[in-house]
């Protein structure tokens, strides 16, 4: 049985899942199919010898993205009227039920436009297919250059070496992107979190609690292993960080981590940790007379491992924070507890309050 047959089946499954997740009628089903798509993608990565990517895709692409999407679905699938109860809107604008606000998941165009659009996309895709087919079988790449340098490099895993050593600048800026996304998310929801959260109602389940307590230590160990093994075999900071983030999300769901205030100094420190690590290490290199982010001889292994460890913490913390910051607050908590910025401003400005909080 030739192996390409398996690959062909896998590829067909991928395309079919992608189509279904975009066109299935029920949104919940669509998201679940998307998660399945992510898992099959992990298999495809393994078949293409990209094991680090497979680990990262399974944890981040399938797991965390799916969890985020499902959470958002829970939020937007409710009736629009509920939006007024949570008190997060501008006080004198309550969104009344708009008669023309579409609530069902529609298609943007009618049948004839869609056919034309489909034909256009099909033609473009066929063109792309022709281009891909004609790609040279011997692509000029940086592989030989990298492998040559890799021989004397203390790190054996090529992807890790490329990420943290040869192209450390890219990873540095990527930490910036991650932090920016989290800051943006926090900016949009921070109003809800100004009041420290009361003890959440016990809507969680004992089973989830026990599962979290059993699994999280295991996940921490696996994350540590992935980090350590990343220098020699598959692994590295990103899969390890993803595992940490998943552990954080599990803690959050099991309501063990709900007592953490999401927008406090420790959270902000976690967000900035990745950038700080790179800046410190790069600055240290400059102080020692080398170019920015250039690890010196003898220092490379230690520098890479140290940076990877900090990156793991930062990535894991930021991912968990992204989930917690965008997760839906249960309605019972909101009533009477959340204050709007406007209320605070009014109170602070009102002379009767004496200007103090």
């Amino acid at each position, binding site marked *: 049985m*030739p192996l*390409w047959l398996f*690959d*062909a089946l896998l*590829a067909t499954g991928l*395309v079919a899942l*992608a*189509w279904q*997740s*975009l066109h299935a009628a029920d*949104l919940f089903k669509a*998201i679940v199919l*998307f998660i399945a*798509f992510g898992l099959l993608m992990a298999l495809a990565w*393994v*078949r*293409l010898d990209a094991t*680090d*990517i497979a680990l*990262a895709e399974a944890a*981040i692409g399938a797991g*965390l*993205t799916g969890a*985020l999407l499902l959470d*958002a*679905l829970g*939020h*937007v699938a409710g009736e*629009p009227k509920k*939006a007024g109860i*949570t008190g997060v*809107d501008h006080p004198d604008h309550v969104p009344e039920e*708009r008669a023309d*606000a*579409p609530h069902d*998941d*529609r*298609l943007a165009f009618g049948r004839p436009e869609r056919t034309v659009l489909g034909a256009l996309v*099909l033609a*473009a895709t066929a063109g*792309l297919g022709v281009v*891909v*087919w004609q790609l040279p079988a*011997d*692509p000029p*790449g940086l*592989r030989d250059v*990298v492998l040559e340098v890799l021989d004397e490099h203390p790190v054996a895993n090529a992807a890790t070496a*490329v*990420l943290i050593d040869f192209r450390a600048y*890219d*990873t540095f800026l990527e930490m910036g*992107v*991650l932090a920016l*996304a989290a800051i943006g*998310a926090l900016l*949009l929801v921070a109003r809800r979190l100004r009041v420290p959260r009361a003890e959440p109602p016990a809507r969680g389940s004992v089973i989830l609690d026990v599962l979290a307590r059993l699994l999280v230590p295991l996940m921490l160990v696996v994350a540590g292993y992935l980090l350590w093994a990343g220098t020699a075999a598959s692994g590295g900071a*990103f899969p390890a960080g993803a595992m940490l983030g998943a552990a954080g999300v599990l803690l959050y769901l099991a309501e063990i981590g709900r007592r953490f205030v999401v927008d406090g100094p420790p959270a902000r420190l976690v967000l900035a940790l990745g950038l700080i690590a790179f800046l410190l290490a790069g600055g240290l290199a400059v102080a020692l007379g080398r170019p920015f982010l250039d690890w010196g001889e003898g220092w490379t292994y230690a520098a890479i491992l140290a940076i990877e460890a900090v990156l793991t913490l930062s*990535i894991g913390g930021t991912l968990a924070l992204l989930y917690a910051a*965008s997760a839906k607050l249960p309605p019972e908590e909101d009533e009477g507890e959340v204050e709007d910025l406007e209320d605070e401003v009014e109170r602070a400005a009102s002379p009767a309050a004496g200007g103090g909080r």
Partner: protein
Amino acid sequence: MSGDPLSVVVYALAAVALTGVAVYGLAVRTHLLRRLIAINILSTAVFLLLVTIARRAPGGVPDPVPHAMVLTGIVVAISATAFALVLTRRIFDVTGSSLLTDDEGGEGSH
């Protein structure tokens, strides 16, 4: 593992097909969540294409530079998706709808 050039071609064609599916879905569906799914599928298709090109380097060992780029890309994709989801929730809170249509949305725009 899969040094078989036919396998690699299969995945490259799958990447092209996924691109088409994602672009069509992005153009035609109006629900914001589905659009985010389409964007994610599009990113995955591009990553797949990058890695298949990397795999084709002769000698059996794949090119590690595209691998690193794809790893970076996955993290960037989830950052963008998470932020976009928060935006989606706020759009829903403010306008009461989670669809993005061409109808004039004068009410919801500030």
